């Protein structure tokens, strides 16, 4: 889920048997140091996973977490988040994949409809977002 232009929220529920099964894919010597992580992919305009993401970053999870607020810091972009296990050798074992979300863009768009450009009066753009009165 998107919380605002900069933050995402992910929650999950992993079936323990699925996790055991995934864990067993790793060679025995790597099972000990395995770490649960979120892998956050920037998939803007990408047909992920058929196409590679524009970039990604990992978040290490503490043991019992079942949700996380993710600072993506990237308004106007698309994200997909994986939860999985990272082995000591850097292998990533996927447990579950999120839906795709898009953060909203902030600030007035650069792109103006050319036929309308001439009409745009300066005073109107100054109506851009001021501090909003707090609701309720």
């Amino acid at each position: 889920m998107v919380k605002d232009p900069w933050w995402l929220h992910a929650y999950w529920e992993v079936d323990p048997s699925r996790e055991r099964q995934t864990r067993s894919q790793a060679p025995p010597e790597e099972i000990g140091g395995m770490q649960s992580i979120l892998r956050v992919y920037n998939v803007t305009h990408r047909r992920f996973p058929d196409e590679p993401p524009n970039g990604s970053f990992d978040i290490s999870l503490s043991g019992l977490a079942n949700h996380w607020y993710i600072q993506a810091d990237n308004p106007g972009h698309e994200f997909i988040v994986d939860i999985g296990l990272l082995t000591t050798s850097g292998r990533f074992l996927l447990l579950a994949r999120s839906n795709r979300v898009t953060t909203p863009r902030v600030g007035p768009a650069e792109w103006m409809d050319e036929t309308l450009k001439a009409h745009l009066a300066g005073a109107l753009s100054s109506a851009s977002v001021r501090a909003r009165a707090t609701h309720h």
Partner: protein
Amino acid sequence: MGNGPHGYLAILLHSHLPFVRHPEHEEFLEERWLFEAITETYLPLLERFHRLAEDQVPFRITMSLTPTLLAMLSDGLLQERYLRHLDRLIELADKECARTKEQTAFHPLAQFYRQRFTTARRQFGETYHRNLIAPFRELMERGYLELVTSAATHGYLPLMDLHPAAVRAQLAVGVEAFEQAFGRRPLGIWLPECGYHPGHDQMLKDLGIRFFVTDAHGVLFGSPRPKYGVYAPVYCRSKVAAFGRDLESSKSVWSAKDGYPGDPDYREFYRDIGFDLDYSYIRPYLNGDGTRLHTGLKYYRITGATEDKAPYDPSRALETAARHAGNFLFNRERQIESLSSLMDRQPIVVSPYDAELFGHWWFEGPDWLELLIRKVHYDQNVFRLSTPSDYLARYPRNQVIQPTMSSWGYQGYHEVWLNGSNDWIYRHLHKMVERMVELADRYPDASGLEQRALNQMGRELLLAQSSDWAFILKTQTHTTYAYRRMHDHLGRFSRLYDALTRHDLHESWLTEIEATDNLFPFIDYRVYRT
């Protein structure tokens, strides 16, 4: 433009209360939300609209009445309970008239409240025959009000986007509820909390809806850049129009600090005899558990940043409301003159407010609105009152842009409804939708008991989705109640799901929850089919 107005002002009053109805209890604290809103907001607004119409003052106001509010306003049990509530208030006001006999500052106020409550009783019982939907409908038919709908239970749609079926059902049931109440399809919708997610406009289009309102940045940050800012609607690619909220006019009414409602002459909401008077005296007018509460009898004015409040003076407050109406008028005249000089068409300033701000929180709000409407008609020629659909009829050609995801909540996005205090609800809500869709697809043509159970699952799901529970969990005001409601609807839903999947339905229990969560009698669970 000739001699026509330079532009338009569209005031939109959004009235909403969550569905609160507890037949299982003789009285219930949270049912007072409805009773207070009827006495303080809905009746005063109706009274003023009727007075304006009688005086032949033309006006156009847009109002949304949410489907949950419509369900409660037409509910016999709640109507009965409202009258009982008023009778007790009248009794309390009688006692207050006697108690304050020697107190020159307070006695006229006690009389003032007694008069208000008896008037409310007469209006509700005799003038409107307990049915407040009819007078709103009549004001619509006479051309004074443009009524628009909202999502079925005020579900916060951007956080539902994972399941389009969930959004579609909130919208479709909202449209159906409107049609049942007002005998026509709605042209517009108030998206709960101004919450817009790209793509939802297409669902609105499919339901015949032509416009919605976003917060200012929803339009201003849209792409391509909106030529007229928020002072003309834009079309989404679906050809549904989005009207952006004007921040300048909003702030003067909304802001607790700089806005009109904080004026020292206005009634102080937080001083109420329910808290001020001797406990044994006030106890008969409190709820079962005896917790002190707002009775509605409030004797003080805001006075200033002091605990030492001065007595309320209604005529002085009315003068201030007139002054504020004049100030608002003056500011809109200047704003609209300036905008129209920069635009090649008449601008529209869209000012949406929660209706319950008027009367309930800002006691003098309905007076201010009436005075403003009169002044707009008599005192100036710069602008006229209008509505979104009037404006679209006048200007059917508008720029096409993609508005951005947004809301009018704190910080402009979803933070109020998604934070550490309430984020746990979404895994449940999403699971419920998945199960609802699963069963709707599995039973394309249910009948009898199964059909009733599936319809009731739809009601329980919709009720669990009310944005109010997330909001309350965040604000920590009636937290226990919000927990209880999430728990109840989730529980009823899951039990129905289990009963259906195990073919183990019991009619008596189903009948019981149908009688409790009895809104949307027309619902058809197939709205969730994919």
